[in-house]
């Protein structure tokens, strides 16, 4: 029984947090080979080889794979699938695009957003925006799944495991990369942060959203947002927390001016401590909040910035 784990890659660098948490999720299965792909990935391969539980690193160095295009990545993984019993990846945007494609090419089902690997062929995953938790068993010869890393503990150092270079199949030319528009920020990354401060429609404007950023900076936190705040242009799309955005489980989550729709709760209700600030005392967000403060965020947030 050997798992092929596709590492989280960002422009040739290893996404250590997501990869190490995925390894944490796989701890019950035996061998894990980590696939590192992209351009100039030498350091990333060495870093992956030093994570506990990794028995081999497969390095596929190629510019064509660096942009996360689904077709060449899926072809590569299928070319390696051989004797693996499991193919997995942290549930990033890249993996959510690529692994269902891999699964279909191998004629097996995909098991997305696994929150517990309960056995060799048994997986637990949320459905209906996290309002139900389903346990499934798979009869497929290769189990292909993505791991929702938020609630798993990252593995520490181990190894080092050997690094092997793998050949990259020639491209199909079906798709080509045109441009990336990536926001650069000094703040911690949303899915890895210890503290997340999220703002909603209650902020009222993009200019007011700076209040959330100010509080986040004071707390060394990442910035999140509700869909309504993203739709209204207060915050960039990659800040969206929820059923169809990012799933986070920080030690502290502050929801400011967010009503607490099911779709938002789906992305944050596993946080350790939840704080809600809302002027409507009946807002559903208070039902999941450990500490609720009914009040006007325009008074509360500046006061918080002054007092924490």
């Amino acid at each position, binding site marked *: 029984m050997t798992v092929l784990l596709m590492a989280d890659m960002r422009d040739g660098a290893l996404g250590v947090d997501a990869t190490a948490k995925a390894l944490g999720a796989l701890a019950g299965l035996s061998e894990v080979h980590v696939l590192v792909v992209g351009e100039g990935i030498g350091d990333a391969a060495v870093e992956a080889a030093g994570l506990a539980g990794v028995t081999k690193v497969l390095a596929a160095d190629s510019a064509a794979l660096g942009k996360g295009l689904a*077709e060449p990545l899926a072809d590569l993984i299928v070319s390696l699938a051989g004797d693996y019993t499991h193919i997995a990846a942290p549930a990033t*945007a*890249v993996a959510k695009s690529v692994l269902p494609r891999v699964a279909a090419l191998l004629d097996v089902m995909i098991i997305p957003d696994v929150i517990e690997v309960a056995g060799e062929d048994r997986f637990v995953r949320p459905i209906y925006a996290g309002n*139900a938790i389903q346990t499934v068993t798979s009869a497929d010869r290769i189990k292909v799944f993505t791991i929702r890393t938020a609630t798993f503990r990252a593995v520490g150092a181990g190894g080092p495991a050997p690094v092997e270079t793998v050949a990259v199949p020639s491209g199909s030319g079906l798709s080509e990369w045109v441009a990336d528009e990536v926001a650069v920020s000094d703040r911690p990354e949303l899915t890895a942060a210890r503290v997340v401060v999220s703002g909603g429609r209650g902020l009222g404007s993009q200019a007011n959203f700076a209040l959330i950023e100010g509080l986040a900076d004071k707390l060394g936190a990442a910035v999140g947002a509700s869909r309504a705040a993203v739709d209204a242009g207060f915050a960039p799309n990659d800040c969206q927390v929820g059923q169809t955005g990012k799933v986070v489980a920080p030690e*502290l989550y502050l929801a400011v001016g967010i009503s607490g729709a099911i*779709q938002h709760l789906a992305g944050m209700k596993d946080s350790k*401590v939840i704080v809600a600030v809302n002027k409507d005392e009946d807002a559903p967000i208070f039902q999941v909040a450990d500490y609720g403060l009914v009040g006007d965020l325009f008074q509360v947030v500046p006061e918080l910035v002054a007092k924490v």
Partner: protein
Amino acid sequence: MKVLVPVKRVIDYNVKARVKADGSGVDLANVKMSMNPFDEIAVEEAIRLKERGVATEVLVVSIGAKQAQETLRTALAMGADRAILIETDDVEPLAVAKLLAKVVAEEEPGLVLTGKQAIDNDMNATGQMLAALLGWPQATFASAVTVEGDGVTVTREVDGGLQTIRLRLPAVVTADLRLNEPRYASLPNIMKAKSKPLATRVPADFGVDITPRLTVVDTREPAARKAGIKVGSVEELVAKLRDEAGVL
């Protein structure tokens, strides 16, 4: 160019799903059902492509219970031209993709626009699986779609922000929330939709194996959070976070 849009009938997004006490699944009896919100967005995009003269016909396909006819009628009322219902029990994304691949072989669309994810099973898989089975390129999580010549340029919502890629047609594109705002069907269009063609088929017509690969062992409620408290001031909040929760 013909555009095919698969639409799924799911629990309405405003309804909170309830798990059956015996763990056998989610209780859908007497629950409001609607078109999957992402599929409304995909239908809207297809209609806009037709209005811009890019698409010649918008074909909607649903796989599911007889009542999925209502979902198809909604799509027809929005402006789709023709519908196919493949009547069956719930099937997995791999089986949906296999059935859709057969419809694609019959209908030869130039573009398939799916929703990014069905809000009941939260799979986020069918579009990608269909693209794989067809050997077509795919663009998931689309927030902008432009068809030019023999290709389609798609802006995608990815983890770090946005990515733009170009696919050779035919292709599969999956719609994200910010692609467009779907229109409401007007009353005259709802009336007109009643006479638009809706064909009913069964999986056996297509000769594909739709046996499930996954077995559901049980479905339960998520762990409940313990009840929280309301604090009266910012001072109190900060004190609780520092001394009681220990997170500051």
